[in-house]
Every structure is written in C-alpha cells, then in structure tokens.
C-alpha cells in the first residue's frame, strides 16, 4: 500500500501521462466526464461523472474500417482487357482501422463502473470476440477509486458491488481518498507494473486509515434510501411473468423515448453500424444506439418495436431478466444511479423495481 498527498496528485498524473495515455474525470463546461489528461485540466474525484467511463473501452463512435475504390488507368490494362469493362477495372480494398496497441490508464473509475466493464466483457469478449473492444481491454489499466461521498441515487450494493473496496471489483489498482491523501494499492499484475512506473511519486503507507474509510463508506451506504431495494422476482427465468405484466402499461407513460439513460449507463452495450460516404469510398463506423429510440433495430419492413411501451419494457427486461438469463444470473445493472439522476422525466430502474415490488405485494401503484 502506498499513498500520495492530494496536493501532489498532479505529479502523479503527470507521471502516468508521461508513459501512457491517461483518462480521468475532467470538469469541462461545468460537467464532469471522463476525458484525456492535459496539463492544467480540472479534475473532480469526489462527484459522479455524467457519463460512465465505458467510452474508454467502448467509445460512442469508432471507425471500423474504410472501403476504398480504385480504378485501373486505361493504359495499365492487361492485353485483352476491355477499357469499357468497368467491372475488371474497379478494385475495392478494405483498410481496417487499427486496434488499440498502446497501454492506457483510466483513473478514478468507481467500483460500480468496474463492475460495468465486467458486464460489457461478458458480451464483447464471449465468442465471437469483439477485437476492437478486446484490444482496449487488453491495454487498459483500471485505477479504481473508492466512493468518498456516495449519493442518494447510489444503490450499487444491491448488485453486490462494494463501493468501499474496489479491490473486490476487477480493478488493476485500487485507491481511496482518506483525509488529505490518496491511498494506492496494486491488485493485479498490470497494476503492479503501473505502480512500479510511478513509484517515485508514491510513499509507503499502512492500511489502517483505509480500513476505517471503508467502514465509513459502508455506513454511509446503509443510510442511503435505495440500497435496500429488493430484487426478488427478477433474474433468470422470469421472462414470461414479467414480460406479460400489465404494470408496464401503467408506468411507461412519461417516458420521452430519449436515450439519456442508455447513454449515461455503464452497461448498455447496444450499437449501430453505419456507412459514411467519403471521397473515394465508404467509411464504416459504429456508434452507440439506444433501445429507447424509435429507429432502434429498424428493418426495411418497419417492424421493430413500434411503441414506447415495448421499448421501455425492453430496456428493463434486458437489464433484469434477459441478461441474467444469458450470463448466469448476473444483472446488467450495477446501481451507479446515473439514470436516476439524469432521466428528464424522473423515471428510472429503481422506480420500476419498486413498482413491481409494490404490485406483487399487493396494493395499487
């Protein structure tokens, strides 16, 4: 275990950034989002970022490959090849977009965010493996940070996340802010390596302070209103029961069908693949999509989910039933509470779970 004074954090960041790309919570135009470290950047390690840090592994927009069209000039044609034959003279070549090949550090992820990455791993690293995602995972070094001030929207403990101890999540390094210091503990081999490279900035420390901080965080979590949420009735095998519930019809109504919840969510993994015409070919890119959008999975026939009720249901069924069905009962919500904070209409997964709970236990909603 090491520590560094909060005052000297910038030295640490500079040290890390000297060797690797560094991503951390940055305050820009009044909002906190994960972004690249730059000299003089304003960081915020206490408050929750608007968007989750999943961009680091699964960016909102990324190019997959470019298709280029080249035409053989008439004078380079082989004998017998007809100049007017456009087919033999047109060549399409595909240029793959390079995979991430340099290590990078993502600093300040919370335990819930790290758990979110686990959710994404299940999807992107199972067969067929998403090579773009895998390259980023392989090169990404996660430095997680225990939550200093959990907020009332937080309910990660419901999903077995311990905000007090990031070592329990799949972080490479765990850190805590205690008093005026940041405590640092390498968890994995990657973490050790990183620690080694920044050791000059760190000093040795003992774990006692961290232990009391952990206890403090745990006691705060106990006081938060949503951490008592019951997941009874959700999980694998509940499709018929939940899908057919009439309750959806009663609660979906205010939903705007915007993509806020999906875009701030650390676990939403849906994307769309699109083409963009360039000077001499096509650029194929992928970008996040939202199941809340009316054109989500739109096919030529127009028969995707056509009502907001269906779309609304899909999101929560996916998080709480379909995903557990597929991945050993693991929920694809980590209780970060971002959707709770950001939904324009104050709808959210907590309200949905509570509504079902209430209905199942009798009484009106």
């Amino acid at each position, binding site marked *: 275990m090491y520590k560094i004074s909060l005052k000297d954090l910038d030295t640490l960041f500079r040290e890390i950034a000297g060797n690797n790309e560094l991503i951390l919570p940055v305050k820009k135009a009044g*909002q906190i989002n994960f972004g690249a470290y730059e000299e003089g950047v304003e960081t915020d390690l206490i408050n929750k970022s608007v968007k989750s840090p999943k961009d680091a592994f699964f960016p*909102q927009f990324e190019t997959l490959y470019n298709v280029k069209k080249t035409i053989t000039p008439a004078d380079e044609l082989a004998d017998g090849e007809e100049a007017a034959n456009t087919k033999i003279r047109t060549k399409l070549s595909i240029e793959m977009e390079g995979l991430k090949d340099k290590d990078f550090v993502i600093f300040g992820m919370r335990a819930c965010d790290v758990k979110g990455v686990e959710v994404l791993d299940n999807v992107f690293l199972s067969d067929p493996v998403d090579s773009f995602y895998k390259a980023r995972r392989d090169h990404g070094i996660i430095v997680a940070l225990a939550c200093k001030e959990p*907020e009332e929207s937080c309910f990660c403990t419901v999903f077995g996340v311990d905000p007090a101890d990031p070592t329990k999540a799949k972080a490479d390094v765990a850190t805590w802010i205690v008093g005026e210091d940041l405590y640092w503990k390498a968890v994995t081999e990657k973490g050790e390596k990183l620690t080694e490279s920044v050791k000059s900035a760190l000093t040795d420390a003992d774990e006692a302070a961290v232990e009391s901080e952990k206890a403090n965080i745990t006691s705060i979590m106990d006081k938060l209103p949503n951490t008592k949420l019951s997941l009874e009735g959700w999980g694998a095998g509940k499709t018929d029961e939940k899908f057919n519930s009439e309750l959806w019809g009663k609660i979906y*109504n205010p939903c705007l069908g*915007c993509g806020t919840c999906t*875009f*701030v969510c650390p676990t939403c993994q849906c994307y769309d693949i699109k083409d963009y015409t360039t000077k001499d070919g096509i650029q194929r890119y992928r970008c996040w999509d939202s199941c809340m959008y009316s054109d989500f999975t739109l096919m030529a026939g127009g028969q995707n989910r056509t009502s907001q009720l269906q779309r609304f249901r899909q999101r929560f069924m996916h998080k709480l039933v379909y995903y557990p069905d597929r991945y050993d009962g693991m929920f694809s919500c980590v209780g970060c509470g971002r959707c709770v904070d950001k939904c324009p209409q104050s709808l959210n997964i907590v309200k949905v779970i509570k509504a079902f709970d209430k209905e199942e236990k009798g009484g009106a909603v």
Partner: protein
Amino acid sequence: MQGLIDRLTALLNDGTVARVLGWKKGDMPYNPEPAIFNSAEELKDFVYDGFCGANLSKMMIEATKLEGKTAVCLKPCDTYSFNQLIREHRVNRDNAYIIGVGCRGKLDIEKIKKDAKGITEISGTELDGQEKVTIKTIYGDKEINYTDALLGRCHVCKGKEHMIADETWGESKDTADQERFEEVQKLEAMTAEERFEFFKNELSKCIRCNACRNVCPACSCRKCVFDNTKFDAQQKANVDSFEEKMFHIIRAFHVAGRCTDCGECSRVCPEGIPLHLFNRKFIKDIDKYYGEFQAGKDPEAQSPLTDFTFEDIEPGERG
C-alpha cells in the same frame, strides 16, 4: 395542494373529466414524474410542488386522443405551449380540461445538489411554502433561498397569466429578475472566435441522447427528420465536429417561430448544455427583424416563418 387534489377528485367524480394528467410523488423528495390518474383513488399519489417543472402540454397530444376529457395541470408558461399545439392541430382542445395551476417558479435540483449530497428530505417547496428551502442530507442539513434554486428559465419568467385555462388554482408569481436576452446579448458581444469556442466547448459534451428534442413541446413531429430517411440525416454518431452543431441548429430552426421559450430543453439536458441559447437567439432575431412575437400567446397569430413583408431585411444584413 390538498385543495387541488380535492378539485381534481371532484372533476373525476362528477364525470367532467375521465382522467387527470399531473405529477405523481417520486421515490425521492425531488423527483415527481408526470403521470395520468384514472381514479380518485390514484390521486392520493398526486403531488404539486417546486419540483413539478415538467411541461405537460406535449403529453396532451396523446392524452386528448383518448375517450373523454383529460384534465391537465398547466403552469402559466406551459399554457403557451398548449396554445401553440392547438394552433398546429396537435391537440384536441375539446378533449382537454385545463387547470391553470399557480406557480412561484420551479426548482432546479442540480443547483440544490451542488452543495447537498445524500438528500433524504426537502421541505418548503410547496406553492404556499417558505422563502427558504430546507434540505436534510446524510451529510448534514442545508438551507437555500427558494429564489436561488430556481431553474434558469424562471429568471426570465413570461408572467403569471395563463394564456388558456378552463379554471385556475393557486396564486402565481412573476419570478423574472433578468433580461430575457441578456445571455444572448453577452454572446453576441463576443468575437466570432470566442463564440465558436463557447459553443464548441458546450456542444462537445453533447451525447446525442435527444432528450432536448423529445421533451420539447414544439418538437412534436411524429418522426423527426433526424430519425426518418427523408434527408438521409439520421446519424447517431457524436463526433467532435459540426455534426452535433448541425443537429442543434436544425432542432432550434425547426421550432423557430413556434418555440415558446419554455426552457424544457435546457432543463432536461443531462450534460447541462444551455440549449435555450439557440432558441432564444432565433426569438431575439425574429423580434428584432419581424416585430415582437411570442409563440403561443395568440393561437390565431401567423408564425413569423410562414409570413413575410415586402420590406424584410436581407439575409446577412444587420438591422
């Protein structure tokens, strides 16, 4: 608030209305959600306080398609939107029963949360509440002036009059204490480079979630141009470029002359982008070039963009 609930109950019971569109108590002290109440029984969860900022006009598009009348609670500024929707034939006035509810400005939870985390209780936000809002949190208690926690839009309040209502409930207050175009003017006074930096900085946060569009009562298209194939403009990518500027310009342009300046776009933006600055620029230009115009004030008035005079200013001229 009980008075309002009583009145709504009476309306439901005597069959004047078939349902009520209002706000339902949230699971936290500050997150009521818009909801439809079908019975007097359901109304026990009805709430109306400082956090009921949502403009319910847009939900009336669907609600007035239902059998029977829907009672809707509209704040003074919401009624402009409702009028505009009438003008555009988007709501069925005959199926609406409008209760003009009083308003003393609505609260911005982001402002409160700035120094109050772990909120467990908030008091003093009712219509007849105190000057001060008291907030209890797990990290200690806080107090804030009601007026200091107002949404940005309330500082340029359009006034306490309801533009349309079948009956009213509660007293309203004109909370305007700022010039409506002050922010726009401030930007206009900057150099082009500064303005470009400002908007680039703000818009670089945009995550293309479309909340601003979907909440907007003027953006009531069945399917937005950015979602349909008519322009081949449906792109979800957010790249650090002109693309989201194009989205925001067109979003504001499509509601130019129809936007009532209700401020919902800025209220709901998860990234806190001051989106109303686009809309308000158009409003300011319209006022300046074509005479003052407030969308939704008079449902009969011709929108400035479907109108003209022979002497209109030429594009690019500064009047």
